[in-house]
């Protein structure tokens, strides 16, 4: 792989890579570090760089009662449903938009764009009324519906970019070799979309995973709480915010995102690409 001429380039790239890594990771490190410290060490004139002498007290607080695990379950269900539905819907729409020409195509693209540009912050009042009328308050379906709509325009749009990035000529070549149109698409184009599906899937996951306002107004029953709602139990204005609890909770909240990424990354990029080569 490494071409001799590229050596200075590689060294520069590596140095920048390490620097960028340090900048990216430091706040994350600080969160994890704080999650092991008592509150009076977290904010102190002399920073505590490594959590030696720290303990698991904050994690013990997190696991007190079953609220955390409940919220984790609820978040996982809503988020996974959102990602799955959004990816499937967006994928077929993206194929339509980039592999077909049809009347209304341009208007659809423009509409998606405009929807993406509308500030959604003020919509929660109407969305609440709507779910109330549909009898979907405090339900997974209700919240998932709102989340799907939240990530769908972006997902369609980005996936369309990825589909367009694969030359149609590749499919045509496959068809000349005797593949049907479907076969050609799934053997040639689809594997090349895997990274795009991963990127948009992770994006949708993180959006839904961290969403606060909609969950706040839709899920008012304690057993329906998602993780971001649960996290606010540590911020009690009349008792002082439990920063240790927030940091421990946040650390745990980040873990499923990483797992999700590793799983889809491994599955899709590894699995599909190798399958495609064989095909």
């Amino acid at each position, binding site marked *: 792989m490494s071409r001799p001429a590229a050596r200075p380039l590689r060294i520069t790239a590596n140095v920048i890579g390490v620097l960028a890594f340090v900048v990216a990771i430091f706040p994350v490190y600080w969160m994890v570090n704080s999650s092991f410290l008592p509150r009076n060490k977290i904010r102190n004139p002399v920073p505590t760089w490594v959590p030696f002498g720290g303990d698991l*007290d904050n994690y013990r607080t997190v696991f007190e009662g079953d609220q955390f695990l409940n919220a984790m379950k609820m978040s996982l269900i809503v988020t996974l449903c959102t990602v799955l539905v959004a990816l499937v819907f967006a994928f077929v729409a993206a194929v339509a938009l980039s592999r077909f020409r049809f009347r209304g195509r341009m208007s659809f693209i423009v509409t998606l764009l405009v929807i993406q540009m509308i500030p959604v912050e003020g919509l929660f009042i109407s969305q609440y009324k709507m779910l109330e009328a549909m009898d979907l308050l405090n339900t997974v379906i209700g919240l998932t519906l709102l989340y799907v709509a939240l990530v769908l325009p972006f997902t369609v749009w980005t996936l369309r970019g990825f589909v367009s990035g694969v030359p149609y000529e590749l499919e045509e070549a496959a068809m000349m070799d005797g593949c049907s149109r479907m076969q050609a698409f799934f053997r040639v184009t689809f594997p090349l979309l895997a990274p795009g599906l991963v990127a948009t899937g992770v994006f949708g996951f993180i959006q839904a995973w961290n969403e606060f306002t909609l969950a*706040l107004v839709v899920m008012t029953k304690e057993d329906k709480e998602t993780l971001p709602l649960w996290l606010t139990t540590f911020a009690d204005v009349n008792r002082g915010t439990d920063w240790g609890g927030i940091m421990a909770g946040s650390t745990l909240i980040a873990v499923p995102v990483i797992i999700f990424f590793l799983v889809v990354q491994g599955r899709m990029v590894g699995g599909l690409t190798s399958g495609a080569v064989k095909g």
Partner: protein
Amino acid sequence: MRIKKTLAGAALATLALTSLAACGSDSDSDGDNSGDAPKAADIRVWLNGTDTPQEARDWLKTTFEEQNPGSTLTIEEQEWDGLVERLTTALSSDSETPDVVEIGNTQAPTFTSAGAFSPLTDELEALGGDDLLQGFVDGATVDGETYAVPYYAGSKYIFYRKDLLEKAGLEVPTTMDEFVDAAVALKQDNPKPANFSGFWFPGQDWRNGATFIWDAGGDLAVESDGEWSGSLSSAESVAGLERAQQLFVEASGAPKDGNEADPWTPFCAGEVGMMSTPGWVKGLIEDPETGCPDTFAKEIGVFALPGSDGSPAPVLLGGSDIAIAAKSANQELAQKAVALMLSEDYQTILAENGLTPALNSLAPLLGDDEYAQATIAAASNAKLTPAAPGWATVEGSRVLEDLFSALAQGGDPADLAADADEQMNGQLNG
């Protein structure tokens, strides 16, 4: 005494009603909601955060269910974060609305004037009448109707380091002038660390800053002929602002643009001589996880900030209201729940946990140590933010944070106050 009688009367009446209701339901068990007895239901009570002690919650549930056979009471804990959004939506829904809600006393006016709550005017007398914290009742009254009643209160008082006062040869101040002098002297007496505060006063802290305006005879905003206008630039208010500025510049080492969150952090770092905080901060300073129980916590003393005339200075009153959702289908049962929450038994539990009770006559239950005395003294002269319809907008636009922060940075008080008044005039009348 009168109050106790009223309460006893109310309790008796409740008992009588309950037994009547019981008889009634005996005689025609299938009857639909016969007579005055409310239909049995599950009453949902929203309480915020962990302020209400578990003991009080248990008492409320048990007592309510005893007195209202067939009905149940469920407490659903809410968080202060996002409370307004949640109330805005849930209180508008026939199916999802809670029956009784707790709401911050400064948030209450926004909802009371919008018709989110049922009027409690007729119940006011039975709930405590003149014995209720009057400021809270006023704040929840619109055009003669009262929509919320006080739940508990809390005001800030001064925490100080006994050792530092002693080292500087200072006595506990008894007037505003002495207090300011002491704050400045403490700062001079402790050149290290550089950010030491004789009086810890971060720039955004207008809630403590308002005290100096009120003490000097000024006000944040005034009403005349139904029109509200800012009165920060009145001569009295400016005198108060000058005093605040003196403290910012000569006595405080806190960040000039900082907020007042987590005061125990600088206190435990040894950077604070005096500070004005809510009483519960004591618990955090004494907690080994959050504070410094082995060092500075041992030196804490407290007093209510003295005013210019030697009586307690007017401080901003904090606390919570309770109200009944207008959309609640169980108005009568909800009223019973509210009555229980204002009962002597229930409020006693709150008082024993350090919350200033909603009934003036119960204040002695706070105890008689120096903390209780400071709490009672501070609450005795506490004030609320102006009851202007647009006050939420003023707070939202952070005019006052900007004003005090600019003061802390040395701006001219009269000019800054005039600017702030101009901004507020456009906002106060909604």
